């Protein structure tokens, strides 16, 4: 799957590229509007990660151009500006998602996956990981073809873990992902322990392997 990252801050771009690379992604990188334009017109991407503030122009212009060229690339905007207006403008212009800096790389990854799934499995949004199958439309999970009962949070957690497979996920990033807009109201991240425990229990009871590994102190990891 091809992804284009448009970001002028080199250090941040490097981190994003390094994080995404291990996941069957082919990543392209543009550091300004002009290069990005050429690449978008020339290639087809599954997902474009676009920083709104670029040295040679506004990311919104690029967004308009993509939409005008009737490209179907999914677009995630990233911005240092957290204005509600900016967010709404971006989504109105046709962006698929919006992420405010600073963000967790794992969160970006989860969002990229969400977009790619929506693009590539139109109508039949299924995710298969060995014996586990997630039906994202019906919001049900099967282990060895048998459905298991998961809460909304547990399903969300499972999806997040699988989307960031082989990566160490900090408790903070999981807690913030599960809390959504309320992440700022969290004063500790211990509550995710209960969700992890329950998810592990339900999966193993259904006969799944234990893929959720605890990484000392740092967090958790989905390991095949």
């Amino acid at each position, binding site marked *: 799957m091809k992804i284009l990252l448009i970001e002028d801050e080199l250090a941040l771009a490097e981190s994003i590229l390094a994080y995404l690379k291990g996941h069957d992604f082919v990543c392209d990188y543009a550091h300004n509007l002009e290069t990005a334009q050429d690449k978008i017109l020339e290639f087809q991407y599954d997902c474009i990660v676009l920083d709104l503030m670029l040295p040679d122009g506004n990311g919104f212009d690029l967004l308009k151009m993509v939409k005008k060229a009737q490209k179907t690339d999914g677009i995630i905007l990233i911005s240092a500006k957290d204005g509600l207006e900016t967010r709404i403008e971006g989504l109105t212009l046709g962006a698929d998602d919006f992420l405010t800096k600073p963000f967790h790389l794992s969160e970006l990854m989860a969002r990229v996956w969400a977009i790619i799934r929506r693009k590539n499995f139109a109508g039949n949004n299924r995710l298969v990981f060995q014996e586990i199958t997630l039906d994202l439309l019906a919001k049900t999970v099967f282990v060895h073809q048998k459905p298991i009962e998961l809460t909304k949070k547990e399903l969300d957690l499972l999806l997040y873990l699988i989307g960031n497979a082989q990566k160490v996920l900090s408790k903070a990033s999981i807690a913030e992902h599960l809390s959504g807009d309320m992440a700022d*109201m969290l*004063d500790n991240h211990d509550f995710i322990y209960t969700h992890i425990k329950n998810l592990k229990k339900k999966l193993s009871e259904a006969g799944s392997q234990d893929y959720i590994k605890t990484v000392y102190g740092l967090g958790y990891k989905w390991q095949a």
Partner: protein
Amino acid sequence: MKQPLLHKTLRVYVLFSLAILFVMAPLFYFTIESLYLEEADETLELRKKDFEKASQPILSIAEIARWNTYNRDQEIIQNHRNIENERIFSEILFDSLNQEYEPFRILQSPISIEGQPFLFTARLNMVETEDLIESIAGVFLGLMLVLLLGFYWITKRLSTRLWRPFYETLHTIETFEIDKKQSVHFSETNLDEFSRLNQAIEKLIARNTAIYNSQQEFIENAAHELQTPLAVFQGKVELLSQEPDLNENQSKILIQLNESVSRLSKLNKNLLLLSRIENQQFQQKETVFWPDILEKNLDFFREQAEHKQISLHWQTSEPTPVLAHPFLAEILFTNLWSNALKHNIKGGQISIDLQAHAFVFSNTGNPEPLPSDKLFQRFFKSNPSDSGTGLGLAIVQRIVELYGWRIAYHFEDGRHFFTVCY
């Protein structure tokens, strides 16, 4: 008690006028009275001279009784008491005409008729004189009163008009709020002092507003500029966490870095929010209903509360909807909620009471009351080692102020109460 400027001047005027009235009225009365006595004495003297010249030379003792009959106010009597010198005095006598006692001015002068000593008496009824004095004094008093009232009225009118620009200026300054981004305009005045005052204030306000705005801008820009390096920082920490074979020590460092960057990013977000509220970036208003916000966030807070074994109660008694920016209203509500949770104790309680024109958050926690004067200040922390940003209640306060609501804190029966009246 402070009194208005106009009252002060008017009071001085009124006191002065009353003093004048009380001192001058008797003075005036006695002056007029003495003038009239003088006048009466002269009249009596004249009558005596007239008698001496016209009647005395031709009057015989035998005719005295008859003469007395014809002259009502003049009389010749025996000089029984041997009065040697002429005298004038006042006396109350019975007036046979009016049938009552009335004041008289009396002249007695020793004379001789046909060599015999007699006493010439002339008298003058002073009743009319007194009436006259009273009328004059009355007219004078009335005049004085009208004059004073006029004086009072004119002063009041004139002062009010003269001071009007001052009061307008005062009102403008009173309603001015530096964070409200309003332009200040003083009405024109042709009085030099007030014109100068207005100019000086205008200059002062313009300067302060400029400084305030540039500070606000600085905060917003600084917070914005920090977002990107923060993103880099967070990304690098996350990337480093992916390294295989991290030892325990390295992991510990990474955890601490993670905590710091997450705290830093929260702090920065709150700073941005605060400056955006102050920069009037939330103009839009919608109908907001507190129970809706409560319900929307219930799951999140219930989960957090359960984790700390805190019981959560709420009750609604016909709360009224308010007009506010939905985002800010939610921030206000959830910040208070989150505070009640954060500063609680294991096994504690949180109560939310939604009333008609107020909502109250109360929670168990620190058994000591918090300093209510510092509570809403930026970066105030009841516990300095607390990992919070110290901006939550400052944001609450700013939102409450923005919509003209009020927030109050009190401590009762071991519970902290935060009441927002809207």
